[in-house]
């Protein structure tokens, strides 16, 4: 592998990790938001 091959590999691995983490974080935020809304909705219905 030449110099640019190593550079591409390093930057590719880092980009995959950073973008992958961003997508995972967004997915977990969406799921947690939905779960929290459901719990709060449940509480509101019980109160009324």
């Amino acid at each position, binding site marked *: 592998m030449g110099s640019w091959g190593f550079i591409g590999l390093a930057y590719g*691995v880092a980009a995959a990790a950073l973008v992958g983490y961003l997508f995972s974080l967004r997915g977990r935020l969406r799921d947690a938001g939905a*779960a929290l809304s459901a719990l709060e909705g449940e509480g509101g219905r019980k109160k009324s």
Partner: protein
Amino acid sequence: MGPTRVGRTLGALAGLCVAVGLYLGLVAAPPDATQGEVQRIMYLHVPSILTAYAAFTATFVASALYLWRRDARADAVAVSSAEVGVVFTGIALATGSIWGKSTWGVWWTWDARLTLTAILFTIYVGYLMLRAFAEEPQAAARYGAVLAILGFFDIPLNHLAVQWWRTLHQPSSLIRPGGPSIDPALLVPLLVNLAGLLLLCGYYVVERTRLEQMRQRAMALRLMRGRRG
């Protein structure tokens, strides 16, 4: 629920700074006199580990604050910054290994700096496992805070390792007594990339803390419902 205004601002600034940093590091900066083009990995490797240090410093401060005040917000910041720190340490280890293969001819060697970085990574992966699998969340937060504080001391040790022991890893050229020893043509792209990754780290920590606070709120609601029967 979308990102907060702070999150959006940090995200936009990080994107801009990383884009400029990539251009400077991959196109504008001259190749190194001895290593040639492959030295461009430095613009990613060095900022990654320094960003990881910053994230773990936040974990250290937030953990100490949690042990002192038992503040759930501090615990949310601690667990979030530890997770983000692990991501950046993983990147530093991977890019260091690739750089090592191209310059030393090996993917890995049990050099003091590399070994202490691997230990740092393992400590905080252990911390995240403790937080994820413990049955009693408050006890996990307490034990986790102690582990995070103890684990933090690997960072100064890691930084000084290249001075204390004969290592294959080169000595620090950025954070050292007497200031950076790098030519400005290489230093500017390095600092721009560092700023970009620090902003990105800030964005991740803000968003991950928001997630942790949602989880804390959901857990509190479930507990309240459980008590009411």
